[in-house]
């Protein structure tokens, strides 16, 4: 039994949560001290981490369009491969095309705000979704025994130690947040994030809510019940703040002219991203002091079969959601404070399988978008030699991407966030 399985994933999450709870027993510092403002905090830099859960097929997201790389790609993917010109051109980068459904990203590329980072991964491929996710979530290849398991939690504890310093939207309680000392805000959607009233007796309902809140305040901070009460109190506090932001944003959105894509008919995971990014925009507009927003598309990328149509719907949703969010940030005047990093836990095989799909791989593209960035291709470009392998290797460690964003954009020292050493490293310069 290796280290990764000595402590089961379940215990791991439990242990991390306990740590969060114990540390949260004191006062719960909240992000907003001056009351909510109907505008983003001025000059407040933020990172939006966007996770494509399930292993996005990077090889079809950005594909080779010239030379032996293109011909090798097509021969390994006779059904799934795109011919040159079938997808979208990247001006100034003739060797690669974007997936045909990524029109929104092409627009951002043309504006000089999209960085495409090739062959991103971590040491020693692991083709399991969950091991791979845990590596990305912890920021460590050997993730057992970490005092603070999640990398987002470590960042928050060091540089954004408020209840709203790091926020997750639409992705549940991810390992990335385990060990955070301030009970970070983890919400599914802002519209559902409030206590509903019992209309059969609303006066008495208000009394009930006051009693349950007073009971939570009377709960001793010790033991299991204390840990739970801290999480409950944080949730109730946050709900009030989020509803205020929601109201302010609704007023803004009514006249901003920004249009998010219609989610009816969208694949569920893409619809979720549209709604989550809209919610992130509302929190930003509500003046939240958040440094890292964590969101994404919570599934659908594990395309073992019938990939063409399924992946097309995902790509289309991804691009249209990001483009609308970009427009929203521009309208708020805060695109230049915003960087989005898009990743998936691994890429897929270079060759298609017999089910018109692709199986698990390793190295993959990551994307970085934002007003502060310099668009272009970063890392080592994918070659015919790479494509002849079973799956892409990696020459850029994913932590180099995060470290660069933390240092160059958020202005913090990334070393204590990602303390594990690794030998394959490449300095990033997209910011």
């Amino acid at each position, binding site marked *: 039994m290796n280290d990764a399985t000595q402590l*089961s994933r379940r215990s791991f999450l439990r242990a991390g949560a306990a740590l969060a709870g114990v540390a949260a027993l004191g006062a719960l510092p909240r992000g907003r001290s001056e009351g909510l403002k109907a505008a983003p905090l001025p000059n407040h830099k933020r990172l939006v981490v966007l996770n494509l859960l399930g292993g996005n097929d990077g090889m079809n997201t950005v594909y080779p369009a010239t030379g032996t790389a293109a011909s090798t790609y097509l021969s390994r993917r006779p059904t799934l491969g795109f011919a040159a010109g079938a997808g979208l051109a990247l001006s100034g980068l003739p060797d690669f095309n974007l997936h045909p459904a990524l029109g929104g990203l092409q627009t951002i590329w043309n504006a000089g705000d999209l960085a495409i980072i090739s062959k991103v991964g971590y040491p020693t491929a692991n083709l399991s979704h969950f091991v791979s996710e845990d590596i990305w979530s912890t920021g460590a290849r050997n993730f057992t025994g970490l005092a603070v398991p999640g990398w987002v939690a470590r960042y928050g504890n060091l540089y954004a130690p408020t209840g709203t310093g790091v926020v997750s939207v639409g992705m*549940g309680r991810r390992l990335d947040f385990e060990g955070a000392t301030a009970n970070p805000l983890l919400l599914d959607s802002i519209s559902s994030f409030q206590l509903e009233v019992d209309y059969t007796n609303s006066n*008495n309902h208000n009394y009930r809510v006051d009693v349950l809140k007073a009971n939570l305040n009377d709960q001793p901070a010790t033991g299991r*019940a204390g840990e739970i009460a801290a999480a409950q109190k944080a949730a*109730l506090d946050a709900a009030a703040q989020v509803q205020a932001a929601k109201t302010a944003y609704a007023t803004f959105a009514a006249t901003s002219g920004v249009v998010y894509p219609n989610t009816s008919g969208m694949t569920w995971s893409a619809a979720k991203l549209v709604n989550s990014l809209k919610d992130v925009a509302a929190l930003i507009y509500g003046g939240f002091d958040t440094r890292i927003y964590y969101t994404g598309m919570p599934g659908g990328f594990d395309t073992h079969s019938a990939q063409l149509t399924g992946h097309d719907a995902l790509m289309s949703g991804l691009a249209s959601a990001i483009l609308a969010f970009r427009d929203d940030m521009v309208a708020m005047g805060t695109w230049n404070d915003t960087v989005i990093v898009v990743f998936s836990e691994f890429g897929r095989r270079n060759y298609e399988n017999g089910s018109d799909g692709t199986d698990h791989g390793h190295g993959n593209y990551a994307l970085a978008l934002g007003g502060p960035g310099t668009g272009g291709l970063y890392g080592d470009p994918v070659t015919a030699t790479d494509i002849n392998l079973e799956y892409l290797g990696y020459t850029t460690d994913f932590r180099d991407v995060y470290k660069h964003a933390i240092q160059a954009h958020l202005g913090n020292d990334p070393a204590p966030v990602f303390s594990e050493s690794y030998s394959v490293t490449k300095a990033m310069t997209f910011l």
Partner: protein
Amino acid sequence: MLKRLLSSGLLAMWVASVAVVTPGCAGEEGSDSSVPPDEDLRPVSTLSQDERAFFLRRTHFCVRPSELAQLNALGYEDYLDWMLSMPSTAALETAGKSAMIADVNFPGSHEIVQYWTYLMVNSSNPFQEMLALFWHDHFAASTDALVGDNNWWAYSHMDLWRKETTGSLNSLLYKMSTDWLMLAWLNGIESTKTAPNENFAREFWELFTLGADNGYTQADIQECARSFTGDRSVFQADYFGAGLDSRVIQWDSNRHDNTSKAVFGQTVNGNGQAEYQDIVNLTLGQRGTQVATFICRKLWEYFCYLNPSSDLLSNLASGLIASSWDLKALYKRIFMSKAFFSSRNRDGLIKSPLHYHIGYMRNTGLLMGWQRVRYSLEACGQVPSRPPTVNGWPVEMSWLSSQGVIERANFIRDLNNYQSEQPGYDVGNSIIPAGQTGDAAVVDYLCWLMQVTLEPAQRTRCIDYLNNDYNGSSVKFAQPWDFSDATQRNKKIRGLLYILSQHPSYQVR
């Protein structure tokens, strides 16, 4: 013999005498008195009412007075035997299908969710449904894999977890590997000899039997994937009668790779469909200790506490292997153990949304439209028959994310807000026993029923709540508690249930 000893109370004396006379000497289970209480697998002797209530709370969604009475009447071990015998639930299923599903041959995926929820709420053997949830989470497969009119495949899938999990693990693994929903979910029906799909082979070891990177290689996966080839989904006209077409899964030897494979360094000869069983046998034979440890850990962490010691696991695992993978014996050993009643175990596991929702409905008898229950489960992130990924559902504090906390309160609120869907149901009269209707007695009784532990100030505040109300400006005014006033009773019992259901101690099972 154990049963007789237990009922006569002799066992307690015998165990005690072993501990006293020969401290450090191996006991019945090979344990000795130096084993920490939370790892002590020796059987318990007598159980208090409080301990029996704890057993129900942990394994039956909640404590129902009628179930405690049944347990008391039979005695603990006989009750375990009864509940593990899985008495027929045919009548429950008939009633559930009739209530939940418009066309029993062609259920919709939402109807499947509501049908399963109905079974959990209405079962007279709630342990069966708690156990089914464990295996459903472990072998997590979703009806999202089904297309068109195939959702009826979910019937046999859910019954696999409800009815086939008290035999041997070997047989369960084989049945799982040929289950239609599983074959669709992990791409078995697309896996052929010319294009074997690795998905099932990988998860068979990583998630179902061994754990990630624990005793298999990528080459093993590729070889094993070739064994799991040959099933296909075929269209059958008039399957349910004239004009009622459907798809079924059939074995097709032409799609099966019948050449030999090398798995774990052993040769697996071409053996047609029987290779599925051969792989199960090979896994249990070559990797038995790992499998037993992995399964025992998962089971222990579901019914007991997280992160059990390796000593405890190896003790349980060797018992499982020695019993020829007898799952019923394993469950019974866990529930009979002293460790199950240890203080560490009683510290509590966080209720998942299904534990919370089903437990509350069984606890209070409050119901509403099944669609509303499903909406709430969706908002909370736990829908039976639709686990989010092959890894199943999250656990523990993950369920108490900011959103999760709010959704729990809103579910209890829904059961108050939609009381028009509970015609004729008087919750106060139904759950509060006669003679316990005074303000303090009501608070104390509901705390027992819901297994809530109030601090003194909280208890005082709850009694105070029964004796007051708010006006439209949220200003408190006196309204002395009167259980006999139907309007006040309905309002305040529901209010008290709402308050207690949000107490930290109600979040644990």
